[in-house]
């Protein structure tokens, strides 16, 4: 039978252990407290960061030459910590990284606050984020952060948009459940939506005409790419040539599965209830099949 007895037991030397730094580590930590990072030169002119009292390869003593390195450096290897533990240096996800500071020949282990593992890569350039209060410990560098490579530039333009005379007239029609068109007497063409100048000849369009709310789908696309501002996919956007018009309108097709829509299909506008109508295109919910035989398409 396993014992159910358990008790927490803490071993913590009161006040914490001390560590004599010796002259080399002591110099490193003293410089850190001043906001500088130094390494020490070996006999063969390599720079060890953090410095050691000896060359780890040969065991020979290092020289007494200290050199300032960094503060920027390059990430060599890294590992991501997704769920930091209580004693970890940051309370949000971070990377442990081997960082080779500029001017150093060895890498230093430290923390990189990169926000997301996708931001980490070998070769990433980083710089220290210093603590304001420094005491001469490696944690005087709170962490390293990536160099600035991108900024966000908010741009916002706000306009007051008026529909203008022609579109207002068209929307009045849509409010009343009809499509208004302009007939160019010179070209003998009927334009929907209503407009007051002809895109072909440039003359004023004097005559307003009402065209039918039925028409023919000349061609269409089935849209499968979701967009928060668009109808739910799949939706059909179609070119609809209203009866009596010479230019097609682009509109949504509904009340029919997307893959049953055909070129030549006859459709009719589905209007929202009269009480809900405003001066807007949203008065037309979509176009739905009429059930008539398909129209012949031109070639």
């Amino acid at each position, binding site marked *: 039978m396993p014992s159910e007895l358990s008790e927490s037991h803490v071993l913590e030397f009161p006040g914490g252990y001390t560590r004599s730094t010796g002259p080399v580590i002591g110099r490193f930590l003293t410089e850190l407290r001043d906001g500088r990072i130094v390494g020490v030169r070996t006999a063969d002119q390599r720079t060890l960061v953090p410095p050691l009292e000896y060359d780890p390869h040969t065991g020979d003593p290092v020289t007494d030459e200290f050199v300032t390195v960094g503060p920027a450096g390059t990430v060599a290897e890294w590992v991501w910590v997704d769920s930091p533990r209580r004693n970890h240096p940051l309370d949000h996800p971070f990377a442990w990284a081997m960082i080779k500071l500029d001017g150093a020949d060895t890498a230093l282990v430290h923390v990189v606050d990169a926000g997301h593992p996708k931001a980490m890569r070998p070769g990433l350039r980083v710089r220290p984020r210093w603590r304001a209060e420094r005491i001469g410990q490696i944690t005087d560098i709170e962490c390293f952060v990536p160099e600035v490579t991108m900024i966000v530039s908010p741009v916002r333009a706000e306009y007051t948009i008026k529909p203008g005379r022609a579109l207002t007239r068209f929307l009045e029609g849509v409010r009343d459940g009809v499509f208004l068109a302009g007939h160019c007497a010179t070209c003998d*063409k009927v334009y929907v939506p209503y407009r007051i100048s002809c895109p072909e000849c440039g003359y004023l369009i004097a005559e307003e005409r009402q065209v039918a709310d039925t028409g023919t789908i000349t061609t269409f696309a089935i849209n499968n790419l979701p967009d928060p501002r668009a109808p739910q996919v799949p939706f059909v956007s179609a070119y609809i040539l209203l009866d009596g018009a010479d230019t097609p309108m682009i509109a*949504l097709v509904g009340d029919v599965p*997307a893959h049953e829509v055909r070129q030549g299909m006859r459709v009719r506008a589905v209007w929202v209830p009269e009480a809900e109508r405003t001066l807007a295109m949203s008065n037309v919910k979509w176009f739905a099949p009429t059930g008539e035989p398909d129209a012949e398409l031109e070639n």
Partner: protein
Amino acid sequence: MGNRCAVIGIGQTRYTTKRQDVSIAGLVREAALRALEDAGLTFKDIDAVVIGKAPDLFEGVMMPEAYLADALGAAGKPMMRVHTAGSVGGSTGLVGASLIQGGVHERVLVVAYEKQSESNATWALSTHLPYNASLVVGAGGYFAPHIREYMRRSGAPDHIGTLVAVKDRQNALKNPYAHLRIPGIDRAMVESTPMLWEPIRYLETCPSSDGACAMVLAAESAVTGRPAWVHGTAMRSEPIFRAGRDTVNPQGGKDCAADVYRQAGITDPRREIDVAEVYVPFSWYEPMWLENLGFAAENEGWKLTEAGCTALDGDTPWNASGGVLSSNPIGASGLIRFAEAALQVRGMAGEHQVEGARTALGHAYGGGAQFFAMWIVGADKP
């Protein structure tokens, strides 16, 4: 057509999804400096600079030409910006050429770019204005119905778009600047990708790219290095709301092609043009433009594609570089077509060089297929 004009320097950046290592100024300079190096010149040798790019809303930098003037060595020189939607790269080249042909300048630097990664083009193209019923469909949603109509009229089999998607990406593997490089690309891979805007599949569309392209244009007296000579230039537009407008085979494109062929003395484009760089952002636009540009009779373009005529080893190679389907920094895409045409007749296209190319077509279109820009360049002086 005015004075003779030659392309004497070409610079491109490696097209990719995100060029986060450079600013916009750094990106355009990279292309410009490569073009100058190709011509053996420096900014000091340039008389005027013409910049092209698509809508400012793409990067949110308003009037970028003002910001980029000194980055392109234009301080104290004439500079201007061109904007004709997707065809802008082509129009930029043509505006630059017209400054030479008109005798205004001796050497003009033309640069076009887009840094699509700074925002999202579909967002910028779907601004959701009040009073209109916006369906938020982007460029693909706009062009898909016209492709469907082409398929109906021509009776082209469904796999033609797939063939173009594969062919252009195979060519891209030979172009070190191309963005999409898909080893082993084949029909099965394209057909396994979803329909985004039916009938357009994912791999039948162009990528979103960051990139810039630059050219140095020179008058005959100012030519350095190996020139590509301009034999014809033409631009056309047409009203998008014209009644009865043929969106499958636009009149503006036909007129533009007729004009540029007349200037270059071309009567049979399929036989007389050795290689064409044509703006094909959705694969089905290859057969559609084969007809619009007179390489095939109406409703017959797909047969050339199906027979492999437009492949790198076909009788009329189209988009040897991989085309817009493989790299699409929108504002630059037209100028890249023009530059790639020039590279071919200079014999400097590297692995995607069409053997013995002497005459090439550069083409761009934009908006709702309502702006067109084209040029013919040749190895020989016109």
